[in-house]
């Protein structure tokens, strides 16, 4: 039904699109960030945030604040908004919204499993989990010894089950194969999400395929950079790349054989959209790459709001809020640790 969304979209999606656009208007602006960066203490930050949409969530916090409290409360706001939207959503929007949280689910699973491997307390780990990626039996993950068990006992009930088909082994869990599991799961998740969006068709497919392709490509680059110098073979590395995106398939071939960061750069610069990202970095540098990618992502997410009658806005909004919370966390940390000179290092302005 490409091109005809305008006729029928508002029947089910109109209300929520309005809601999400309203939420988007509440995102912090550059002026807000400028003020926040000038704060001297966490109380100043609270005072400033109390004038924004975060106000009601922070106003009842007693005075010695911690960074974690700020982040927790801000996340709580996002979760509340998400839950409200999910309650109101009908198919296929509700499935779409659920897809957004699977990424957090994968991260949470990995977090718990890694934590148990290092013998951390489960309760402590649970507090660190992202509230959007929670599911019923998450705490029991600690019982599992290997992936097969993990899958059979617990994950078979979760929406992540289908993504496991590629990584069921009986090997005992260790850091390396947990990381591989994470990436395999992510690959399967992104591909599934991509397919789902294609099925939805219309503007949603168009916009989401662009956003997801960017996500897949970014993950491919990150996997490559992180696996340089490890025992991961080229073929194994190749298997972790998602099978779509701008880099697929020829870029993947090149990335798979990269030995250092400059080779990655060489491979990426052939693709015009990524050329600009890499041109900001000096040779041999990979620290700032994350920020550069985030900036590019934010730009693309903001553009998703330019078009109407599609689900991409929900994805974009969630991502932007998460980026905002990351920014707030960074600013609060810098303020709390008296490192104000570094405040601008990692903050990505949204508007």
């Amino acid at each position, binding site marked *: 039904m490409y091109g005809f969304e305008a006729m029928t979209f508002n029947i089910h999606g109109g209300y929520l699109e309005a809601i999400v656009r309203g939420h988007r208007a509440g995102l912090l602006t550059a002026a807000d960030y400028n003020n926040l960066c000038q704060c001297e203490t966490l109380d100043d930050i609270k005072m*400033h945030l109390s004038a924004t949409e975060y106000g009601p969530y922070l*106003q009842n916090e007693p005075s010695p604040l911690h960074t974690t409290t700020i982040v927790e409360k801000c996340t709580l706001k996002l979760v509340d908004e998400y839950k409200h939207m999910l309650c109101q959503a009908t198919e296929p929007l509700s499935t779409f919204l659920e897809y957004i949280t699977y990424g957090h689910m994968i991260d949470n699973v990995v977090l718990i499993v890694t934590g148990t491997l290092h013998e951390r307390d489960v309760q402590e780990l649970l507090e660190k989990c992202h509230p959007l990626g929670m599911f019923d039996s998450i705490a029991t993950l600690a019982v599992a010894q290997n992936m097969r068990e993990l899958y059979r006992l617990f994950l078979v009930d979760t929406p992540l089950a289908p993504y496991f088909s590629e990584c069921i082994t009986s090997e005992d869990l260790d850091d390396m194969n947990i990381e591989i599991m994470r990436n395999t799961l992510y690959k399967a998740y992104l591909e599934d999400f991509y397919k789902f969006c294609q099925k939805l068709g219309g503007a949603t497919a168009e916009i989401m395929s662009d956003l997801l392709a960017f996500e897949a490509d970014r993950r491919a680059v990150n996997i490559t950079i992180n696996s340089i110098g490890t025992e991961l073979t080229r073929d194994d590395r190749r298997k972790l790349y998602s099978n779509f995106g701008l880099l697929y398939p020829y870029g993947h071939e090149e990335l798979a054989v990269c030995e250092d960061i400059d080779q990655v750069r060489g491979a990426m610069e052939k693709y015009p959209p990524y050329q600009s990202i890499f041109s900001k970095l000096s040779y041999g540098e990979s620290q700032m790459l994350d920020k550069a990618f985030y900036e590019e992502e934010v730009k693309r997410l903001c553009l998703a709001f330019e078009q109407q009658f599609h689900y991409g806005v929900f994805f974009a909004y969630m991502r932007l809020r998460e980026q905002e919370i990351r920014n707030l966390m960074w600013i609060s940390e810098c303020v709390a640790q008296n490192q104000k000179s570094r405040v601008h290092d990692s903050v990505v302005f949204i508007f």
Partner: protein
Amino acid sequence: MGDSRGGCCPPMDLFRSEPMQLVQLIIPMESARLTVAYLGDLGLLQFKDLNSEKSPFQRTYAGQIKKCGEMARTLRFFKEQMLKAGLSPSATSVAQTDIDVDDLEVKLGELEAELIEMNANGEKLQRSYNELVEYKIVLKKAGDFFPSAQQSATAQRREMESNQMGEESIETPLLQEQETSTDLSKQVKLGFITGLVPRGKSMVFERILFRATRGNLFLKQVPIEAPVTDPVSGEKMEKNVFTVFYSGERAKNKILKICDAFGANRYPFSEDRGKQAVMISEVSGKISDLKSTIDAGKLHQDHLLRTIGDQFEQWNLKVKKEKLIHHTLNMLSLDVTKKCLVAEAWSPVFAKKQIQEALQRASVDSNSQVGAILQVLHTRELPPTYFRTNKFTAAFQEIVDAYGVAKYQEANPGVYTIVTFPFLFAVMFGDWGHGICLLLATLILIVREKKLSSQKLGDITEMTFGGRYVILMMSLFSIYAGFVYNECFSVALDLFGPSAYACRDLSCRDAYSIGLIKVRNTYPFGVDPAWHGSRTELPFLNSLKMKMSILLGVAQMNLGIILSYCNATFFGNCLNIWFQFIPQMIFLNSLFGYLSLLIILKWFTGSQADLYHIMIYMFLSPTDELGDNQLFQGQKTVQHVLLLLALVSVPWMLLPKPFLLKRQHENRQRGQSCTPVQVTDDTLHSEANHSHGHGHGHEEFEFGEVFVHQLIHTIEFVLGAVSNTASYLRLWALSLAHSQLSIVFYEKVLLLAWGYDNIVILVVGIIIFIFATVGVLLIMETLSAFLHALRLHWVEFQNKFYEGDGYKFYSFSFALIHDEGD
């Protein structure tokens, strides 16, 4: 009429907004807080933010604001605790002891710490109490099913053993077989765990347990009837008692972990029946001990909360005031010497003395050596608009403000709105029966005014309550208009004496229109009841109401243009008088003023002239003979003159003003500061686009832009004169709709039901009639007539003179804290 400056008549306060002045206050640091507090009590100043470039936490008093925020948080915490304990803060504060802010902060901190400690202790006790309660339930429930479970377990085992002794069955599970064969002695001692699991999670819990032990367990669950309080979260929830039997150490570890993950509380349990009984009695004893401790704690806490509750409102008010004071102090700029604060504020001229008194009082009360200084500043900035309204005029002023706040000292249409708005409404809503219903409804609101204004109302009720005096006036006027139309629920009554018409003979009983002759004097007030139900009723009333609408419209539009004259003289703008007011007057009155004259003439003479024809052919062929349509001698000449005047006034409106403005501008540039047009001494009142000119060199003057602007204005007025007059016909249309609707309800529902002579139908008919009258006629028709009256005021009336680009005067006042509430 608009001459408020004249000495002969009392000043009309509402016609022009209060004269304002910008005052500068220089307040010594030590008395600053008290001064601002007194000014807040006075509530007649609007402080300007002199630190707008600073972010909130860089300002001088950011620390105090934070403190206030903290105190407000503590108070909210108290409130929450009070709500939890089922107490409400007493509305009237007991002791009005004036407490210092710093003392209050300390006191609040202490109270909070005490309360938190108390809560923590209470929570600990509560937790162990809840645990014991759960334990007791487990003991009871598990005690019930344990023997049976044990039996079934042994039965199973026996069966298994017998199976082993016999031939190996294929159905025997492989694992069990292994275990039984390897370690028979250990197998006898089955381990078990008992506890509680939330009911919602019980299914998943069972499934996971099953998978984790590969089915090698026995689980029994029993639901608890009443919800229990969870010790960890403190919430009531439905739970199941479970008992798990397992074998082997590894399975035990797994099960324990899973129990933790599901928030299932485990409790020790003994197989021995005797021990069980001992434990139950032990637990019951502990429970009753704990209960009395908890109750004592609760009592203490309630006492503390009650003492807080007594003073809560007072503290709350104090903290809010304090916050407002410091917010205001933050708007002041610090003097270079850092010894005093400088404030700039708008205030009405009349308030100067009161402000000075407040300043003096503050400096005396704070023992400051130097008093605060007040001086008036001169500025070009446009002051805020401030009307001193009362509860009656406020709602009408709101109607005007909703369109746009009046420019400073511009003629305020609100004055006329008080009468014209309800009047125009009534023209559309003329039915004195409905009017009385409306009057009764609004009287309820007015009588219970005190009670209602103190409580929070719903959205719609709030709005109705706010406009209660508007509705009162509307209902009074519609009763009046109802008498004029002679309609009460669409029935005509002869209240003012008998009808002037009677039948000539008996034959005219059923044919209303013919045969009626005038037998008495004209009916003294309103429409003669004889018209009601006659065949010519509609044509007669339509013609009457249509003409009346035109008359009212022309009158109101003329009033609007006259108000533009008031504005022009007040602001000393001769251009607007000569090249806007006069041609507009001529244009409107030569066309529609003439029409009004013809209408009145026709009424007086009873002529058969066709007014449409006259008006149309006055333009199309002015030279034609009038024939039957002649109403007075020399009508044709008059029409020629009027037509000519109207035609002349169009270029008169359009052309001279831009050129004169241009010349004025050129003169000014040549250094002549005093142009003949600017007659008033007060340069503040010069036209908006001149306001920046004098002080700072030249201003831009785009002739093209000014000309296009004037062109648009002229076209708008010329077309508007026609369309606005036509727009007033809505008065007739709505009035017609209203009376026809009420006739339908009266005749087709009430009279029809009456005709059946059946009590049930009659009751149903009356109910339908009442609902239709209230729902459609009283509520919906009121709304639609209100909207149309609103439109006539906003568009047709106000566009003749009203600029409405001012901004409101928001005074810094503590009185607003009370309204704000929660």
